[in-house]
């Protein structure tokens, strides 16, 4: 078994890149990561993209991206797991390097969400949920979040106002992050006043639609001769029930709890041992459910914890210093790769934004929908 490192990272600003194609975005991120890693060969090009088929109309994307960036001949592999595709790609890449089947793997996450009108994109986004149930009703991607948020507020007697501190915290982080989409601060009171999408969910509880690409080079530590930004300590994942309401407690993410238990068994490292974390806050309520499923906040207390100042840069763990899905943005298939690239830079001390000096452990957390699958990637300082 080989030790696995992140030897290079590339991150594009999430935004409306009307003048660039999906492949242009992928190339820009890939070149930045390859230049930083300085590897002289790439065995695999793994592409994570969730909506490219429908938004761009391309199948076999990994092969086309390989040749577009001049890596013709590399083994191409496209990986898809809905919103959690990015961490799935990192997990596959890590396994290939760890097993010795590959020395260097380029992982590119890319998605383009501004090719069509937002109505069409939201229609595509509802496909992250179980199509057997939700394709008939066509109510979009925010409805389930609305059901869970109301359940949370009623069960734990949490107010709308308390839940508004999360988006405000995310914007305060994104303001300092040069590659975030929404680089401005908001007051918690603005969340309640913004457009209602799926009551009680408002526009500011949700993520913006933006294009994005991020890349990492994952390498055998010996091959890159001890260089690299961070070590990949472990990857974990788990599938879950097809919708959260089949769980005894819909407000816990069963697949995340299962993936987390596996991670603790593998490494002995707990969420409270982590210095910096990036979590999948597709909605405010998703963030609360993740923080409670990982045991970082007590049941029903995450919103109060955030309102009292927990999870900012001086907390352990500091959460979503990028601004999270909420404000850095959520270019679906790219998001997990963003997380790993950002956390690698946090550990290497090269992250340009709110950062934690001397951070030694970092965790990326992704969930598809509300837990049909969950994935974790644990990184350590080199």
């Amino acid at each position, binding site marked *: 078994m080989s030790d696995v490192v992140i030897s290079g990272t590339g991150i594009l600003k999430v935004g409306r890149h009307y003048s660039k194609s999906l492949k242009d975005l992928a190339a820009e991120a890939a070149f930045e990561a390859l230049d930083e890693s300085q590897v002289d060969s790439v065995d695999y090009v793994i592409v994570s993209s969730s909506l490219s088929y429908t938004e761009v109309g391309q199948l076999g994307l990994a092969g086309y991206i390989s040749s577009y960036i001049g890596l013709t001949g590399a083994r191409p592999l496209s990986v898809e797991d809905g919103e959690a595709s990015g961490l799935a790609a990192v997990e596959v890449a890590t396994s290939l390097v760890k097993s010795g089947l590959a020395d260097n793997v380029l992982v590119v996450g890319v998605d383009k969400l501004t090719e069509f009108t937002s109505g069409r*994109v939201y229609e595509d986004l*509802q*496909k992250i949920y179980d199509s057997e149930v939700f394709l008939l009703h066509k*109510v979009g991607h925010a*409805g389930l979040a609305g059901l869970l948020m*109301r*359940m949370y507020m*009623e069960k734990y007697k949490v107010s709308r106002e308390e839940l508004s501190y999360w988006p405000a915290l995310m914007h305060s982080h994104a303001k300092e992050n040069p590659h975030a989409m929404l680089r401005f601060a908001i007051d918690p009171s603005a969340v309640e006043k913004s457009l*209602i999408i799926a009551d009680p969910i408002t526009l500011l509880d949700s993520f913006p639609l933006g294009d994005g690409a991020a890349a990492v080079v994952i390498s055998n530590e010996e091959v890159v001769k001890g260089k690299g930004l961070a070590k990949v300590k472990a990857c974990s994942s788990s599938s879950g029930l097809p919708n959260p309401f089949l769980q005894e407690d819909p407000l816990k993410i069963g697949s995340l709890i299962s993936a987390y238990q596996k991670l603790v068994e593998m490494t002995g490292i707990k969420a409270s041992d982590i210095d910096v974390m990036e979590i999948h806050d597709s909605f405010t309520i998703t963030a609360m459910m993740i923080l409670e499923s990982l045991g970082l906040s007590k049941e029903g207390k995450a919103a109060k914890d955030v309102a009292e100042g927990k999870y900012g840069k001086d907390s352990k763990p500091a959460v979503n210093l990028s601004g999270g899905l909420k404000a850095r943005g959520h270019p679906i298939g790219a998001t997990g790769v963003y997380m790993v690239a950002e956390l690698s830079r946090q550990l290497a001390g090269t992250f340009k934004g709110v950062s934690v000096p001397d951070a030694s452990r970092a965790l990326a957390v992704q969930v598809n929908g509300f837990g049909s699958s969950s994935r974790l990637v644990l990184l350590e300082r080199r």
Partner: protein
Amino acid sequence: MVVEDLSVPAFWRRRTSYYRLVAARCKKCGKLHYPPGAACPYCGSRELELIELKGKGILESYSVIYSAPGESRGRAPIIIGVINMNGLRIVSELTDVFPDELKVGIEVEPVLRRMDEDSNKGIIRYAIKFRPILVSKSER
């Protein structure tokens, strides 16, 4: 533009779960799930029996969707709810109710309602929705 997510055969295959509330009960662990899978998602047993959910349900949560995507835009606001029937929670649309009449804990019952029309194929789609059970003031 019409995005045809649901094909004619797909709609036909799912008619039982769309038109009748047929759930699966695991013969090994006894747990219910909906719509029926190929095995029990809780214990993995393939010994399932189909049962039709009947009677009334309790509304456990709801959301009023104002910003419905694409084709559904004309139907907004769309109200969806989590309904507990025979101990199984299902997500469905609510009908015959105004948003300000909704409350967690009210009793609801299933009814068959028209969803929409597929303009390309001429299919009129129906689905089960839930409506509040009307209770007269003296019964309250």
